[in-house]
């Protein structure tokens, strides 16, 4: 494993990525910073979809819960960032568990719908209590992680590498094995003596933890929290597209998909309004012709050798 070319290539890429601030402009760093945060959300989503087999249409419910909790603690109570992040992540886990306990009894489109509705409800809730949450306007956050692009980049990069490592490790650990078995064939997994609901719930909580944390980090980077940044359905859609695009059931592919989406959107920026159109079209073509996503393309080449 440690000597496999795949591992070495990953290490080389990571080192290059870590050293990027020495070579590229602040803008690209800012871009990648966002991509890394969304990457973590997408990886957390893939843990749920690719391994637990549950399609969560509302990743932004978890992200938004974490982000808003952290933001309000910082805005009103002035708590330091790490504490806000921690409490935000806990809130996301609690919210995720409240959502998941009943929702996991459902399957297929129904589970998806409930998670979707959760997002809409959160959105309505934020708007209804505009006095506290800032409503449609959003809430500004006094503290930010860092002002300069490079430290912000390193925060995000470190966060993504650690989260990615943990999620990947978890997915490939014995528990990940059980989770995957539960996602693939719940009946067989339970006949093997595994409490499928327990494992899926745990996966949901882990997914919520990283999503909430990423949401918190993201808003402490942007310095503002608003429905449009962390709750809106379109953000959730981006996350799902990123994960499928990068390659389902790979965890790491989700991060690659996120980076691709944001970077491609930026490279196509001269197209203005059309850039989203073109990025969606590219994603559609990849899904139609390379359903394994980017990592699928890589692995297919490898499988032949």
């Amino acid at each position, binding site marked *: 494993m440690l000597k496999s070319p795949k591992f070495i290539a990953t290490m080389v890429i990571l080192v290059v990525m870590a050293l990027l601030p020495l070579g590229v402009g602040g803008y690209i760093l*800012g871009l990648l910073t966002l991509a890394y945060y969304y990457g973590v959300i997408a990886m957390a989503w893939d843990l749920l979809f690719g391994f637990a087999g549950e399609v969560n249409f509302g990743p932004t419910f978890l992200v938004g819960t974490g982000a808003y909790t952290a933001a309000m603690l910082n805005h009103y109570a002035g708590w330091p960032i790490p504490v806000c992040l921690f409490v935000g992540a806990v809130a996301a886990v609690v919210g995720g568990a409240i959502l998941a306990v009943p929702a996991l009894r459902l399957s297929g489109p129904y589970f998806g719908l409930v998670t979707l509705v959760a997002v809409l409800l959160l959105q309505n809730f934020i708007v209804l209590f505009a006095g506290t949450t800032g409503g449609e*306007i959003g809430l*500004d956050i006094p503290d930010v992680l860092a002002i300069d*692009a490079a430290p912000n980049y390193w925060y995000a990069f470190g966060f993504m590498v650690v989260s990615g490592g943990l999620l990947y490790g978890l997915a490939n650990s014995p528990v990940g094995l059980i989770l995957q078995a539960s996602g693939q064939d719940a009946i067989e997994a339970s006949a093997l003596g595994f409490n499928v609901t327990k494992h899926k719930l745990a996966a949901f909580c882990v997914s919520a933890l990283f999503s909430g944390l990423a949401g918190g980090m993201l808003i402490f980077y942007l310095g*503002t929290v608003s429905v449009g*940044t962390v709750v809106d359905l379109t953000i959730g859609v981006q996350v799902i597209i990123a994960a499928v695009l990068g390659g389902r059931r790979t965890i790491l592919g989700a991060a690659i998909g996120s*980076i691709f989406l944001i970077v491609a959107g930026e490279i196509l920026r001269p197209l203005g309004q059309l850039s*989203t159109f073109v990025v969606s079209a590219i994603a559609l073509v990849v899904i139609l012709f390379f359903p394994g996503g980017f990592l699928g393309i890589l692995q297919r080449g490898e499988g032949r050798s």
Partner: protein
Amino acid sequence: MRGGLLGALLAAGLCLPATARAADPIKFGVIAETSAIGGASIPKAAQLAADEINAAGGVNGRKIEIVVYDDHNSAADAVRAFQRAHSEDKVSAVIASYISEVVLALEPWAGRLKMPMITPGAASDDITKRVHNDYDHLKYVFHGYLASTQIADSVCEAGKQLLVKDMKAKTAVVMSEDAAWTLPLDNEYLKCLPQIGVKVIDHIRLSPDTTDFTPIFNKIEGEKPDVIVTGISHVGVQPTVQWQQQQVPIPMFGVSSQATSSTFWKDTNGAANGVVFQMASAPDVAVSPKTIPFAKKYTAKYGVTPAYSGYTAYDDVYMFADAIKRAGSTDADKIVAEMEKTDYVGTLGRIVFLGRDSQFTHGMKVAPGYITGLMEQWQDGKQVTVWPSSAGTAKLAFPKFVKLGQ
């Protein structure tokens, strides 16, 4: 795949020019949602101003270049664009958005990145209030449009003649969308309308996502006010069309940002007929000698009249250019210092920014002889000015279904 992507990124990074040379153009960033009426006018008007300045020799021998960023009306996209404008495109100043939420999200970044910024269309009082409260950090932010409170005052001022005398209105319902800019607007409406003798009998804040306004209009109609005083910007076409289709007998009067563009008539299929709305300048009124020529030029070039944010964006480019010319440098602090000394007659009127002592620090001075508001009305496909009478080109006229107070 990943390697390729990174390679492209690295290449892009290395291609950046290290420093700007003297002969390089001065860049202004324009951040706006270009697929919305309010947003679309901003880069177009800014480009028009830049072209004019460049045709006249530029600024200190350097041309002006407008770099446009589409923020898709998202605060996150806008922050990204702002960062790009600062660190990659190295712009000297940013003209940003007509949405208060977006501007409020950008404001701390203008402070952090020390980037002069002006908004040509957002109205929230908070924009200038924050500058007032934290001047040292946020002095880079200027407000190139009226603050909500000022807008409300301007509507009330016009109301003295139009509402009270012409329309004989005694009661009103305030109908605003739930957004950052309407909070101070509504507060001021509730204060100033009674002062001119119009009693506010209800205050409705509606979600900007509303598509069906029937219940709202029905509720208002049940309360029998003489006028609906509006504060809408995100919504516009739908309430107007439904107002007309349902033949709500109460006139709409106040702020309706989307109504300021000529495409509004087409989008509403003429339902806009009779809507009265506030503007700072209009295509048919010589608010200043520059107003009508600009509107004509813009209309000739783009085929539609500018939205309210077009006038301000046009002026903003000129003001930044003048400030840089006077400062002789694109240094942010020097630009800010010169911007504070601005006394410029633009399409909006005479523009002077208020100082640190005002609660509207870096907001525009609104007073006779400086900037005053206008009231416009859609009449048979045309925007006509109905107030003040000095500039007024037409009398109020409403569609038949509207019943005025007696």
